[in-house]
């Protein structure tokens, strides 16, 4: 029990230190490709400290994917999470409506990146083409701007465990657009930006 409390304390300190570094970067330079890259490197450095994230501290998914909050900032702040996804877990091409960075602790998750090629004028219709891919595995990460599009799939034969840092906490996420090349369609999930606000 004492060992678990100790790892939780050290983890909380490390997560706060990461967040402080992220704010130091964005406060002076804002969010742009260069600062997003710097944020990714900070997140990869934290994920490399696997001793801070012992599996015993985090419940495995009941189905195939589970997200554990690590540090959720108040108001419109950032959200840092530990994600566990089992082999085969996938997500269709989507944006987040806000920037995000991922870094692997263990396992391998392939991120395919897409570009939208239609004019967006027909509701519910969209065309996307694959433009690149990154394997997120230990020592590696990826970063996306607000409307970059990626698809994910866990390709290791054991769980992919990683860190995910979002510009907004998941509970205050904007609308997410999901793209389906098979159907040439796009569908959106509702924004949570003001779900908890008094009206």
């Amino acid at each position, binding site marked *: 029990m004492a060992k678990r409390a100790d790892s939780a304390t050290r983890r909380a300190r490390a997560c706060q230190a990461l967040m402080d570094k992220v704010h130091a970067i964005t406060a002076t330079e804002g969010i742009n490709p260069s600062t997003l890259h710097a944020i990714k490197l900070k997140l990869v450095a934290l994920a490399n400290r696997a001793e801070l994230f012992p599996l015993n501290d985090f419940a495995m998914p009941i189905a*195939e*994917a589970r997200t554990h909050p690590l540090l959720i900032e108040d108001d419109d702040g950032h959200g840092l999470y530990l994600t566990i996804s089992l082999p085969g*877990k996938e997500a269709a091409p989507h944006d987040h409506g806000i920037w995000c960075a991922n870094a692997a602790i263990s396992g391998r998750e392939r991120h395919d990146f897409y570009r939208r090629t239609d004019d967006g004028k027909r509701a519910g219709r969209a065309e996307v083409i694959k433009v690149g891919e990154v394997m997120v595995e230990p020592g590696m990460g990826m970063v996306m701007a607000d409307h970059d599009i990626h698809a994910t799939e866990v390709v290791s034969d054991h769980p992919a465990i990683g860190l995910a840092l979002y510009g907004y906490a998941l509970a205050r996420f904007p609308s997410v657009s999901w793209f389906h090349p098979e159907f040439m369609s796009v569908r959106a999930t509702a924004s949570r930006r003001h779900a908890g606000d008094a009206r």
Partner: protein
Amino acid sequence: MSDAASIFRVTVRNSERTIDCPSDRTILQAAIASGIDFPYACATGNCATCISRLEAGEVALLPRSDTALGDAQRRSGLTLACRARPLSDVTITWLARSSA
């Protein structure tokens, strides 16, 4: 579709349609291919927009997130059309509407 796939009949109550669905396709894929306006968003087991009641029949579920379909929901007869492949003839009713 693989050569070994079986074809099952899937009835979508909301649209009063019965369609063919191979055992290696999800109910959502078959429904959209048949022109049914089935509600969906992520189509990969993350958002639960396509959550449906499985009225009859059996399905196999592809990987999904805990938050999209809990164990208690699954035991109570709910499923995700985007993750459900038929193991028999199936009758299903979607519970939500989508926003394009």
